[in-house]
């Protein structure tokens, strides 16, 4: 970073303003030094709008900092308050003197129709240019959502990649001793806020997955009809049993167009992969093998499926085309590979690997090259991708309590470089996270 500042200072000396390079975080490099960014409290027309503006800035700062790509500057170093910025504009030379490169300012005012108008600006302090400026008019209750959308705009303008802050995570909330663990579906914003339970804990639930196109979740439940895959409609709260299968169904995931759910069915000791058309409820068998074929995940173009199978003697990852042909084994490393998930960008597949008593989360290219392990623990499992394919979430489980007879499960996020691992705080223990697409 210091190198960057020196370089920019040098450019400032030799180049006219218009020709100076814009600030930008280069994500093509492995490890990125966080970019210092000043986020001024938004100016409010009255005390309640001022308070709203401060809350929004808190959410934006925490989003950007959690990404690991930004370092919000402490407000005590700010050279201008929101009132001064609103009255006089940004005094760039003073901000430059503090070493600030990127500055976010904004206002919260009452619109003519009584709703709230939030306006924000992202400034390149060195060139004194506005990089983004957008106004949103909405009801005050939507302030958190607007803060996430603004965070995404800042992220996109400075990294060149889509953001992921305006998204949610569905997961399994856990309580109680392991022998009688109570598991409930729960949903929250990607930063852990707006937490809500979706089931009451009566039935054991596992592996929820978001629809890529609708406000729906598919999951597995040990309800009174046996272990089966269900569909949950977030807007109506309705649960629907999916398909008419003998035996158990589990490990569901949506197709990229949201019209199908792919899952495993186990009957008479054999687990194969099936696809269910949600409209017609027609089921299609995709694999037919005496091995365990499970944890299927589509490529983002819907043409391929990655899955795990022990057909070669131990759990490994395979790809096939979406009708089941052209099966290719893609993992050959030591140990076992499980629950593969195709990145929404298509370039990588995340997985869980077990080797010599440890669990790992890693990524590999769809052709089986470039395997890279990202994190490891006594038990870490179940990766899920942020909508922009930049961040992975997963859960870790560890033995706690007297004699290690209790289990603690927590959800984490990590940058795909393997840096910036963070605990995503949930009210109770959490497992099986699944990231939503960007909110509609």
């Amino acid at each position: 970073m210091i190198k960057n500042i020196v370089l920019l200072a040098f450019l400032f000396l030799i180049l006219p303003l218009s020709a100076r390079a814009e600030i930008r975080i280069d994500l093509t490099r492995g490890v990125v030094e966080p970019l210092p960014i000043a986020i001024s409290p938004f100016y409010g027309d009255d005390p309640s709008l001022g308070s709203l503006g401060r809350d929004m800035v808190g959410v934006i700062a925490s989003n950007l900092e959690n990404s690991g790509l930004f370092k919000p500057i402490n407000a005590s170093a700010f050279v201008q308050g929101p009132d001064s910025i609103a009255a006089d504009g940004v005094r760039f030379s003073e901000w430059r003197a503090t070493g600030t490169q990127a500055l976010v300012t904004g206002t919260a005012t009452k619109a003519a129709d009584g709703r709230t108008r939030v306006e924000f600006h992202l400034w390149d302090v060195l060139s004194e240019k506005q990089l983004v400026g957008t106004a949103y008019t909405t009801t005050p209750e939507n302030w958190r959502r607007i803060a996430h959308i603004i965070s995404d705009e800042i992220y996109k303008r400075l990294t060149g990649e889509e953001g992921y802050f305006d998204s949610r995570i569905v997961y399994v909330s856990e309580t109680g001793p392991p022998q009688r663990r109570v598991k409930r579906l729960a949903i929250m914003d990607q930063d852990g806020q707006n937490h809500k339970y979706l089931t009451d804990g009566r039935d054991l639930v596992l592996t929820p997955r978001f629809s890529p196109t609708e406000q729906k979740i598919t999951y597995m439940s040990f309800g009174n009809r046996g272990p089966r895959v269900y569909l949950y409609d977030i807007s109506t709260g309705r649960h629907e049993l999916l398909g008419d299968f003998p035996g158990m169904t589990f490990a569901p995931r949506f197709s990229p167009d949201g019209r199908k759910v792919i899952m495993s069915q186990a009957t008479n000791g054999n687990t194969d992969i099936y696809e269910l058309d949600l409209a017609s409820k027609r089921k299609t068998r995709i694999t037919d093998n005496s091995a365990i074929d499970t944890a299927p995940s589509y490529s983002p173009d819907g043409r391929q499926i990655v899955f795990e199978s022990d057909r070669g003697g131990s759990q490994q990852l395979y790809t096939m085309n979406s009708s089941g042909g052209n099966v290719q084994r893609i993992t050959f490393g030591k140990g076992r590979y499980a629950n593969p998930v195709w990145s929404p960008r298509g370039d990588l597949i995340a997985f869980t690997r077990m080797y010599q008593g440890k669990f790992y989360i890693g990524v590999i290219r769809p052709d089986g090259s470039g395997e890279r392990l990202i994190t490891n623990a006594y038990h870490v499992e179940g990766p899920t991708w942020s909508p922009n394919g930049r961040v992975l979430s997963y859960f870790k489980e560890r033995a706690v309590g007297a004699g290690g007879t209790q289990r603690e499960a927590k959800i984490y996020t990590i940058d795909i470089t393997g840096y910036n691992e963070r605990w995503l705080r949930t009210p109770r223990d959490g497992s099986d996270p699944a990231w939503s697409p960007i909110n509609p």
Partner: protein
Amino acid sequence: MLARTLMIFSALLIVSACSSTDDQTSMDAQGSMASDSTMTADGPLADIYAQDVNGATPGTQADLTANIGDRVFFGYDRYDLTPEARTLLEGQANWLNQYSNLNVTIEGHADERGTREYNLALSERRANSVKNYLIALGVDPRRLNTIGYGKERPAVVGASEGSWAQNRRAVTTVQ
């Protein structure tokens, strides 16, 4: 069950007390017994002969667990039956043939050192290994249901092979 056994056991004590103590005590005892309508001469005694006070009621889950064994264990990532498992299941098959009115569910389980989806599949395989062996031993398949719990319902919690081995199991449960 326990409360009932205790009641019967205490009734036996009172009856034996009646026969072995002197007349005065016996009369007192009979006086208090008179108020208990169940303590007729042969009513509860007949009931006692139908019960096994030292163990479980025949043909119940408790009977299966105590006298036959309700579960078999598997090796790591295995679903084939060990010789010990086969012996125990032969006992289960005899027991099931004796109580031919009973249906059972075979619950497959896995240890925590595997991933969630695979363990569901593996535990279903284990339950079916048991089911298929019981069928081969003459148990009607219509009496046997299977379910795979994966690693979701451990019997023992610990971070060692000793506890994991106890969780790689298939448990026969009377419905």
